[in-house]
């Protein structure tokens, strides 16, 4: 009798295990696979005022890119952005990604976010001393920071970058705050290159290397053949210092003083960079 009970127990356990093995849902390690919520689903009720109003800006969700021709273009734009030498290979002359400076998919405040950038143009360019279009501005990036050749104005790459930047703003409700533009403003400072070298060795060389070559495409080069050329904004110590002050060193951003940020930026600018081709001054 006892043995029957034991057997029964084992059988029940086995059946439970068999059923359990096939019915327990798998844990999704990535929350991104959840179906998108539909805020407009209840709009025919009086829920308009009770809808949560976005008070802070939330980065867009890549999994919500539509599966359409436009969606394909947005996705290509994102890929060009994050792996520029791979997806825009014929136009890029170094090993830098757009996302190396425009951090977190161009959505981070004080790291030159590009959320809704197509709506800012045409605008007056201090560099060109004229009104420029977003195409012109992208060409400046490609010929300077990417040390490459201009993209075709109506090519798939240019359209993809436009689609991506527009989409960054599209996924937000109207009237919400967006990341503020540009970089953190800095006063004029006087550079101390020796101090800059010391800061670089202590705080930067762990990732970017003592040779400044980084490990592209994961960690960006700062000088040498793989880096931006001497016409790039990042080659201006004041501009780079604004970027460094808020975003670097990456394991403890904000830990450098303004002077340290300026010194290290000047030190990096004093290193060799590829030469900018002035034929591209037309942009």
């Amino acid at each position: 009798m006892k043995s029957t009970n034991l057997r029964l127990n084992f059988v029940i356990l086995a059946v439970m295990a068999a059923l359990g093995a096939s019915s327990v849902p798998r844990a999704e390690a990535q929350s991104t696979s959840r179906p998108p919520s539909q805020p407009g689903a209840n709009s025919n009720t009086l829920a308009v005022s009770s809808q949560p109003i976005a008070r802070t800006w939330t980065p867009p969700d890549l999994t919500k890119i539509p599966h359409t021709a436009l969606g394909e273009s947005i996705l290509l734009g994102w890929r060009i952005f994050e792996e520029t030498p791979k997806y825009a290979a014929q136009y890029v002359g170094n090993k830098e990604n757009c996302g190396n400076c425009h951090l977190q998919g161009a959505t981070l405040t004080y790291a030159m976010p590009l959320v809704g950038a197509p709506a800012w143009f045409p605008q007056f360019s201090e560099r060109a001393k004229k009104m420029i279009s977003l195409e012109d501005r992208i060409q400046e990036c490609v010929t300077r920071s990417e040390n490459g050749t201009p993209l075709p104005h109506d090519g798939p790459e240019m359209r993809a970058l436009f689609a991506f930047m527009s989409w960054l703003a599209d996924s937000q409700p109207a009237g919400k705050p967006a990341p503020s533009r540009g970089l953190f403003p800095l006063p004029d400072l006087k550079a101390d290159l020796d101090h800059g070298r010391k800061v670089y060795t202590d705080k930067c060389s762990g990732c970017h290397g003592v040779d400044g070559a980084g490990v592209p495409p994961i960690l960006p080069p700062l000088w040498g053949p793989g880096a931006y050329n001497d016409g790039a904004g990042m080659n201006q110590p004041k501009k780079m210092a604004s970027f460094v002050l808020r975003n670097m060193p990456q394991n403890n951003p904000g830990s450098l003083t303004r002077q340290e940020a300026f010194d290290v930026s000047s030190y990096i600018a004093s290193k060799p960079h590829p030469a900018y081709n002035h034929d591209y001054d037309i942009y």
Partner: protein
Amino acid sequence: MKVIQGQRRSSTLVIVVTLFSLAVFPFALLAQSQVANNDPRMIRDSETTPSGPSANAILENGKRIFLRDCAHCHGQRGDGVSLNMRTLHPAPFDLTSFELSESYIRHVVREGLPGSDMPAWHLGSEEEVNDVSAYTARLEKLHPLPSQESYAPPDVMREAGHRIYKMHCVTCHGEHGEGDGPDASKHLPRPASFTEMSPAFTAARHIIQNGVPGTDMPSWPLLTDPEIQAVTFYIQTLYMGSSAPSGRRP
């Protein structure tokens, strides 16, 4: 007479249920352990002593113990999805997202994990602990990263990952990933030792982006996607578990 009839009926029932479960059970097992069947995690016959039980017997026994003693928190699949998952802090460990060395599993089962709800498990015999550790180390693991999703070739990933690890992880997880960095003693549960556990890419990404609630592992939104992939790649190279003795009863 009635009693005898009742007995006969119940034994018929037992036979029917047994036959049914024998028919269904292998399929459920097959689906679950297909990966384990044709890869090096499977216990090889040469690893078991000639006089000892076969590898399959060890795993069968381990599975039985796992379902009896572990599954109510770690879930039947071992992925941490269980009825108790919401009541525990930190949440039960997802055993399917990490390669784990058998010696480490044995250690945690015997000693528990201080700072978490994982108790020291003194009830089982030595043999049971060994069997359940052997089974747990061979739970189905999540798939590796497809090569087309990798941002760079392996040597680039390793070098970049090493640099990122030194800058971001080393103060707690230690220079050689043994969980013994200079700040490690400030934290309970102790920082993970990557020589004993190797995370899958999806799990590492989730943990770096979200942290582990209930432990001192913070969310670390400073890292970009390529950097997370590279550092995970490097962390996986620190794992020493495969060289640990396995599947053998002392």
